[in-house]
């Protein structure tokens, strides 16, 4: 790090700058450096080196002072991030604490962030389903947002490209709405998950229960071994960082790959304040960075800039990149920047029991988490009083039946010796939400953060469509559970704020028309051809599939396009 305070413009000039080192930024860095481009990777947080900086990864349960629980003082000081399921004693060091980077909630929004090299790719739930034309044609068919400027055929080869490198486990299920990919062997369903799969298959048209597809190396290929990763060991303590590289994270995969090329410079502790636009040249020339340790402002220059700061921070950077040409934010001729933000609705769950398969249990732990039910509502045609639909997680588990009564040796025996109770089954909703102009982020005109950057204001909420969809999820899953003979069915809904799904998307959406979108079909800013946005901010709609795999594919595709345009002298 000694050579960071370089003052010559030449030394601060690169072929490409990638803002953000997480899920999508890591891919941009990998693609550029693979082709020999001198690339600067900017990360606002600290460096997290694979294995070396996973302090809890090999700790035993008894080595945690509070056995996984966080002290009350930490919980009380962090009401927002404390609502995230993975914010516990073993992984709290990878989450942004509430006070560290404040924002303004005009409407409640739980903004869960990971400011470090690798970003949230260290912490994600690793579910990786492709999107299909039922998603990319959705806005046009159903009349919301704007038409996606691409179709499945445009992105399909790039899904294959990133899947092979990242390592995705799954079955080729042959479902049109959930296209198959380049899969490593799937993790198996258990006895009761298989029972429900077969029940659904025989009793419902166009409804399926499949093994959840996930970014784990069930059986690695040579390309994964070349990355220094080995087979997933089924520990399922992934949020600590995996010393085996058993799941895809930027830390284990794309970032070290980019650095190994010798063409990348990784600069942590670098908040991007704005992108520099040159009015004469009509393009961006670089970025203005605040060093978080010294508070010094430094400019870096490049031919092409990829913005991968995670959806809402990408919006923040673009909104804060003001110039005479773009007084309302870079590329914001249309006025839609920051608007049409959407997310996933995770606010319903259902649980039940199954009084069968008592002679079966499981052994070990399933990193895929169990089954996945692709969207079955409004797929081929509109059939309900709400738009779009939901995917559902599905899992079956058997717990020891333990009597907690009394004290002494009989209590100890009861608790230690396994007598399994009935199977429990559970599902959670993953609903698509509709991007709307009224769901937006904007900059506060007064309050700034510790680095002089305006605070982001959140105006994002559920709507009537979400409520109707939630009701339908509960009805449909209750009906499917009932017909499968599950008993003691209990649905629960919660009033969680948007954000806790950690799938916020949009604000700098793609579209065919520069009047109603920020990016073209190559994730390229319509009016600033050397700036690309390939993280969640670019999403025109949200699908109901987990989005990370799609960000990866868009990023690799856009990087390829950017490099071909550079070669042609167009940017």
């Amino acid at each position, binding site marked *: 790090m000694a050579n960071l305070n370089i003052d010559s413009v030449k030394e601060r000039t690169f072929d490409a700058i990638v803002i953000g080192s997480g899920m999508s930024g890591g891919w941009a860095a990998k693609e550029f450096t693979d082709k020999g481009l001198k690339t600067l990777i900017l990360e606002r947080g600290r460096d997290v080196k694979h294995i070396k900086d996973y302090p809890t990864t090999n700790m035993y349960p008894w080595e945690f002072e509070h056995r996984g629980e966080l002290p009350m003082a*930490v919980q009380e000081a962090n009401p927002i991030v404390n609502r995230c399921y993975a914010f516990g004693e073993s992984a709290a060091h990878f989450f942004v604490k509430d006070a560290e980077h404040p924002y303004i909630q005009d409407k409640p929004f739980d903004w869960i962030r990971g400011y470090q090299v690798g970003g949230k790719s260290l912490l994600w739930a690793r579910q990786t389903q492709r999107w299909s034309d039922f998603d990319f044609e959705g806005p046009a068919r159903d009349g919301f947002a704007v038409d996606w400027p691409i179709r499945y055929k445009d992105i399909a080869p790039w899904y294959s490209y990133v899947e092979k490198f990242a390592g995705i486990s799954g079955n080729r299920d042959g479902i049109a709405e959930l296209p198959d990919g380049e899969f490593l062997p799937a993790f*198996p369903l258990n*006895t009761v998950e298989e029972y429900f799969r077969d029940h659904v298959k025989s009793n419902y048209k166009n409804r399926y229960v499949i093994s959840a597809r996930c970014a784990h190396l069930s059986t690695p290929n040579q390309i994964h071994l070349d990355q220094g990763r080995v087979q997933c060991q089924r520990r399922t303590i992934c949020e600590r960082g995996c010393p085996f590289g058993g799941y895809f994270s930027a830390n284990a995969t794309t970032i070290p790959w980019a650095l190994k090329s010798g063409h990348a410079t990784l600069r942590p502790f670098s908040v991007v304040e704005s992108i520099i636009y040159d009015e004469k040249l009509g393009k961006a020339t670089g970025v203005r960075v605040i060093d978080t340790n010294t508070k010094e402002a430094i400019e870096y220059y490049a031919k092409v800039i990829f913005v991968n700061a995670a959806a809402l921070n990408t919006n923040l950077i673009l909104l804060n990149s003001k110039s005479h040409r773009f007084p309302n934010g870079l590329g914001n001729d249309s006025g839609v920047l920051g608007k049409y933000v959407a997310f996933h609705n995770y606010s319903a769950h259902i649980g039940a029991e199954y009084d069968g398969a008592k002679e079966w249990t499981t052994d070990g732990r*399933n990193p895929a988490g169990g089954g996945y039910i692709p969207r079955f509502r409004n797929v081929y045609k509109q059939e309900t009083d709400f738009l779009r639909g939901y995917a559902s997680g599905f899992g079956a588990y058997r717990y020891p039946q*333990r009597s907690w009564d009394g004290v002494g040796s009989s209590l100890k025996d009861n608790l*230690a010796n396994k007598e399994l109770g009935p199977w429990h089954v559970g599902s959670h909703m993953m609903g698509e939400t509709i991007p709307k102009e009224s769901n937006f982020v904007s900059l506060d005109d007064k309050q700034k953060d510790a680095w002089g950057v305006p605070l982001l204001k959140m105006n994002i909420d559920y709507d009537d469509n979400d409520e109707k969809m939630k009701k339908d999820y509960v009805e449909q899953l209750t009906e499917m559970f009932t017909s499968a003979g599950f008993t003691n069915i209990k649905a629960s809904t919660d009033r969680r704020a948007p954000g806790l799904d950690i799938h916020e998307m949009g604000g700098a959406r793609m579209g065919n028309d520069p009047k109603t979108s920020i990016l073209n079909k190559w994730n390229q800013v319509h009016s600033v051809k050397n700036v690309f946005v390939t993280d969640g901010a670019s999403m025109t709609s949200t699908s109901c599939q987990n989005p990370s795999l799609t960000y990866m594919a868009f990023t690799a595709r856009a990087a390829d396009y950017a490099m071909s345009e550079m070669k042609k002298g167009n940017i």
Partner: protein
Amino acid sequence: MNRREAIGRVGLILGGTIIGAEFFISGCKSSSPKVNDLFTQDDVALMDEIGETILPATSTPGAKAAEIGKFMTVMVQDCYTADDQKIFTKGLKDLNDASDKKYGKKFLEATPEQRTELLTALDKEQKDYTKTKKPEDPNHYFRMLKELTLLGFFTSKPGATQALRYIAVPGKYDGNLPYKKGDKAWAT
């Protein structure tokens, strides 16, 4: 002021009414060194024996071998609300008073049979209380003692690896394994 100091000050203000006075009295009676803001070495010894009575050494180690008293001091101090801390610390005193009333001696002086008898009665009391308790009603101190004993023991090294089975790196997942009743349960 850091977070810990802030919480400590809140506790001091709240504790100034009843709990503070009790602390003062017990502090006068005992010269036992403090292990943290809430507990003394004597408390640790008492909680070790309460834990051991709840989960005794059998063919496998008991709660005392898992240093359950020390574990409770950490959890109650760091992870309990101020209200629950008060209930817990007062509970230790109540437990000794109950022993005194029933057997004419403190818990630590009671025989193993007397200890088991007393805690069995307290367990029934907490169970009955918890059954009808409304969410806003205070927790029962013996439920806290029992929960902490179970949590602390089964996540401890002797508890997880000897009383239960623990494998750090399973390496596999089998979704269809024939079930055999009576095996040791898994720690995680």
